[in-house]
């Protein structure tokens, strides 16, 4: 298993001197032996939150959007903030699974499966909000260009919301396909190891995977192609989401900076979320040998890099508000800095600009609980960033007569929590019932730099 082409400076990607059988054993353990008590505790919590969220959303659909705190001027607040936040979260998964794959970053193998799962669940969470934010969600199908006998009446292809529909549905479809395709060899493995119902189920799910060279060959080609297909989505989806704002006329929304700014912010927030999840998962699921400190270190570096780009975007935005001399635009930014909801902006600056700077330090990157705190702060900061853009731009726009304040109701806050409930419930179910780590891929890198690594680290 030696890779003589690897530099002696490289370190192994998997710790603990695993052999091939051990990898299968470890990863399938939650499926075969059931999870730890911590999983049950986490599942109980997240499913409860999901149930509460479900109840609140049902109540809102039953009685009306008025149960939210929106008003005549602030037409979007928590709803679309949540939407953009969750779509952004998804981006790290795609980046890890597709772009890092194309760039031959082999360390991704330990995290790509769960990062992709995260993408799917995040897009599911995101998809809920455009649906439930509608005044009449039962007519949501009208946004799809389906053949009808009303003329036929097509949707408005000029509307960025319609572009969203296509962007998000494409994203979800491609991500799900990519993720499922990657699962096939592992599903077959689980089936091989199991008996009874699970064997039948996983056999069916693995779509007749036979492990032959021919199958592997097809699989590798398809995976590469899908990775290439998913790669542009990392850039396009959030670009299109940013068009919701950039193509409008509202000061604070109407800016050409948004596409790159949004994409970078998405990756930044996505990596923070991957870190949050992985730091929990490696502990809870006993995967510390697979999701190693070196993974965390690498992801911290990406977070730091994207964070720096984001800071440049913030600075550019502020500079242009001043330099552009558009009085409305200038006011919006002054209002972010000094207006009644300025604490949102300052909290965001702390979370997104100040906090990530600690990641410059190797010791911080090697301390999971510190990284965990930073990742949570970034999640908070990125949510606030969208809230700043959406609600705070709306609450004071062109005509001062229509300036209002905005206060969320418990339904909105509960719905946001509920989306986390949905996300974590789905993620925990995934951890419990599917191989959380790409077994076949990890096996492929098991021997990577093992000898040099041992020599260097003595472990």
């Amino acid at each position: 298993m030696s890779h003589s082409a690897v530099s002696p400076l490289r370190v192994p990607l998997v710790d603990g001197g695993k052999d091939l059988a051990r990898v299968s054993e470890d990863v399938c353990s939650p499926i075969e032996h059931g999870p730890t008590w911590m999983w049950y505790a986490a599942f109980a919590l997240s499913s409860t939150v999901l149930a509460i969220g479900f109840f609140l959303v049902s109540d809102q659909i039953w009685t009306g959007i008025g149960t939210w705190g929106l008003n005549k001027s602030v037409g979007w607040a928590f709803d679309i903030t949540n939407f953009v936040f969750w779509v952004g979260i998804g981006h790290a998964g795609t980046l890890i699974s597709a772009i890092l794959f194309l760039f031959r970053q082999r360390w991704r193998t330990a995290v790509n499966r769960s990062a992709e799962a995260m993408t799917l669940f995040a897009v599911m969470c995101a998809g809920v909000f455009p649906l439930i934010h509608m005044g009449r969600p039962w007519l949501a199908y009208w946004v799809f260009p389906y053949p009808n006998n009303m003329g036929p009446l097509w949707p408005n292809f000029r509307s960025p919301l319609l572009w969203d529909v296509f962007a998000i549905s494409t994203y979800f479809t491609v991500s799900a396909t990519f993720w499922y395709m990657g699962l096939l060899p592992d599903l077959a493995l689980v089936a091989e190891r199991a008996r009874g119902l699970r064997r039948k189920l996983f056999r069916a799910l693995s779509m007749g995977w036979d492990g032959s060279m021919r199958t592997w060959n097809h699989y590798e080609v398809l995976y590469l192609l899908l990775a290439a297909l998913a790669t542009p989505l990392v850039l396009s989806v959030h670009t299109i989401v940013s068009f919701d704002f950039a193509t409008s006329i509202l000061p604070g929304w109407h800016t050409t900076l948004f596409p790159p700014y949004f994409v970078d912010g998405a990756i930044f927030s996505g990596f923070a979320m991957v870190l949050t999840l992985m730091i929990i998962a490696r502990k809870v699921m006993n995967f510390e040998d697979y999701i190693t400190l070196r993974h965390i270190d690498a992801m911290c570096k990406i977070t730091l890099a994207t964070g720096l780009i984001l800071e440049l975007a913030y600075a550019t935005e502020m500079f242009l508000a001043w330099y552009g001399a558009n009085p409305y635009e200038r006011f919006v930014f002054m209002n972010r800095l000094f207006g009644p909801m300025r604490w949102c902006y300052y909290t965001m600056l702390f979370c997104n600009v100040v906090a990530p700077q600690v990641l410059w330090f190797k010791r911080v990157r090697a301390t999971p609980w510190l990284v965990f705190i930073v990742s949570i702060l970034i999640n908070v900061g990125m949510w606030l960033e969208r809230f700043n853009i959406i609600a705070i731009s709306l609450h004071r726009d062109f005509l001062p007569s229509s300036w209002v304040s905005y206060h969320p109701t418990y339904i909105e806050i509960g719905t946001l929590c509920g989306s986390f409930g949905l996300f974590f419930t789905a993620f925990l179910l995934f951890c419990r019932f599917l191989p959380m780590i790409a077994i076949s891929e990890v096996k492929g890198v098991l021997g990577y730099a093992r000898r040099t690594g041992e020599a260097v680290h003595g472990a």
Partner: protein
Amino acid sequence: MTEDERRQYEEQDKVDGLRRRDFLQILGGSFAALAASGCGLSAPREKIVPYADKTDVTPGLARWYASTCGSCAAACGVLVKSRDGRPIKMEGNPDHPLSRGGLCARGQASVLDLYDSSRLKGPLSGESATTWEQLDAAVVKALDEARRRGKSVRVLSQTIPSPSLDAAAAEFCARHGARRVIYDSASAAAILDAHRLTHGHAVLPRYRFDQAKAVVSFCADFLGAWISPVEFTKAWSSRRRPEKGQGMAWLAQFESRMSVTGANADLRAPLRPSQELAAVVELGRLVAKRLGRGEFAPSAGSLPEPVSRALESAAGRLAAARGEALVVSGSPDPSVQAAVNGVNELLGAYGKTLDIRHPSRQRQGLPDAMSGLIAEMERGEVGALVVFGANPAYDHPESARVRAALKKVGAVVVLSQRRDETAQLAHYTATAPHALESWGDAAPVEGTYSLVQPLIAPLFDSRSEIESLLAWSGRKTSAHDFVRELWRAKVHPRAKGARNFDEFWNEILSKGAVEVAPVEGPSGAFNASALARLRPARKPASDGRFEFDAYDSVSMFDGRQANNPWLQELPDPVTKVTWGNVALFSPEDAKSLGLENGRMVRLGSGDDAVDLPACVQPGQAAGTVAAAFGYGRPSAGPIAANLPTRKLLPIDFDPPGGADVYPLSRESAVAVAVLAATSPLARTQQYDSQTVPFTGQERPLILETTLSKFNDYEVKEEPGATLWPKHEYPGHKWGMAVNLTSCTGCAACVVACQAENNVPVVGKAEVRKSREMHWIRIDRYYGGDDAESNPTVGFQPMLCQQCDDAPCETVCPVLATSHSSEGLNMQVYNRCVGTRYCANNCPYKVRRFNWFDYAHDDLLQNLALNPDVTVRQRGIMEKCTFCSQRIYAAKFTADSEGRPLKDGEIAPACAQSCPADAIVFGDTNDPDSRVSRAIRENKSYRVLEEIGTGPAVRYGVKVRNVSEEKA
């Protein structure tokens, strides 16, 4: 159904367990309100003649009938739209000589009072229902009993300028040896008293603002709620047309609170009520000096410097406009009014700008008569009291005494539409009809007569006041016959042009009003000696107290329409507060008291103390506090109590808004205590300036110029560059011109739009959440150098701008809002899925979202809905459509008559109602249309033009008639 069949059905019912009859009862219960009348919706019994001279009724087609508004003594002429037998909209009658097509917010809203299901359903004896026969017998018996016992019989009412009702009351008084007492909740007694002093007889002049070139007003809110605001606004705005090249009338306002009139004044100075006499006398002295007359009157006190300066320039303007100048005052102090008369006499105003030979018949109540009556009642000398058109147990400053005194009266007979505070104390309540259900007439000023004709048979078991009074006088006659006979005897002979009476009657029924030869009253020589002994009734407040100024608000007036949801939700033109009154403090006082908006304060002490939320009002005179009448009525009805109309909705319940300040209005000064509690104001505008914080940019929303610069004023049209091809408008291109110079901000258009377009009312809690639904709102901005202590005010009606390149249209994912070939942004309700993206992208924030299914479960109230306009479901966006239903109706009519549309044929509800004629609508493709001319002549600009939306609404630059050194 045969007897056998019936039995068979009943047997079956028992088997079914649900009695069919019960089921039908439940079903019928929904229509109980209608069924109570026994006749549902049916035409009135007598023949009525529509405005247009056609008599056929076509289902689905509206007919307009001329009548008279019954909301207040101003008695404006109205045209009532009747659709399928039910009146659904009231508009100003252009043929009425006083109101000339305008109608105020309260008048517009009164159509909803007709369908108020909390009105009385029938006559009451005590608290229990009775029949008219029993009621009449009991009332007549009680009246005879009173006389037998040697006690007096009194008839109490407010001023109702109806000759027929007066005649009926006179007949009643003659029959029962009764005396009539008149009081007014909004009293002009000081003016009457002052004329008795200065001219020898108590008279309320008719003010002729259309004759005035310079007006100085002391606390008279004549554009808001003073005497006859629609007539005055029409008249006044006709002199504020700089584009006609005849100059522009000038107005100075001295007042303690910021009124609608003060907001429209060219010069305004805050003045405490206690300083009014000194100010008027000073004005008189300055005018006398300028005109080279002898001393006007001894000075009545010193004045603050800004007031003296303002009086100087006012005196200059008045003296220069001698013969075309007018001074008015709303003061309750006869001394102030006498001094005002003196200034008017100096200026030669009598016979020119105010007329006491053809006086007003409004507000004739005198407080002495009323206090006499209260004392008489308290002594137990009144055996029977008949009250009509009044609610003294609420709307009189001595209401507590009135309530106690009423209990000492042998028999209290109240003629009322509702079980109001007075009716609750009545032994007999004769249910009175709404003005749209009854016959009547009005003569608000000498020589002007109009008819009230019913548009619908009474919805409830009510009987006109005229009929009731006559019935108790032993005469059974219908109100129609009585009015007609009175007109035959009294009005027809004075009419110009010889016609037989039937023709005359039919013509007046159709046209609504007539001017007849007036009866000239005495002019009375001016008695200058009256001015020598002027003593102010009000002393300055001492020991930390505040001078108190209670006022009639534009929306609530004296509270008689307090159960009207449109009026409760109508933002006050100046404060923008809905659903309740507030205590107005100057910014200076608010600072020293540590007050912020919504902080509760206690005004006064003892039993009369009221708790009100504070509101900081720029322009309020320091040391004064003001609050509006008409709120805090305990028995006005479920809406005034702000009960949740729809229990399923999670709309928070708020306690009834506001407090009754009638008792407090006896005080000239009140103590102010700041309480710990707060009650957030339900305000529709939170930020009051065009100058934004942080950057200090003044947004170019209301553009202003001065009269002298107006002719050279140039509108900079800067349509930005666009990548898109222009829209083609081959036929019509609808547009609107809003004249900011004439708009007074009176808010009549807001209610007119609400009535026309079925705009829902959302309630106090929802207004607090900034979710009011008005399609047209009046933005009000403060500005000027003294934005806190004495700001200049600009009003800007803001409605959908019907942009050419509308930001809303591109963003809707389902094409629910799209562009018509005539330039309208069409909102397709049944296509809307409610993403609210369009509202976010609207720079004018005129789109309104249905956050809930708003209450439409009062089936009776639903009869006021306009069938031509969709009632919107929850979850969809709505907005101004330029009253597209009226556009389509007019096009349809023109089409069916085979002719092109005429200019001016279409008037959206807002434009029609405007008493100031500030809104003109029409086809901007036609360069000679009224709207195109108005756009050119008024130097009109488009709001936020620079962002490239291309609005179809253009605002005529606001012209202030200020002296150059100030501009």
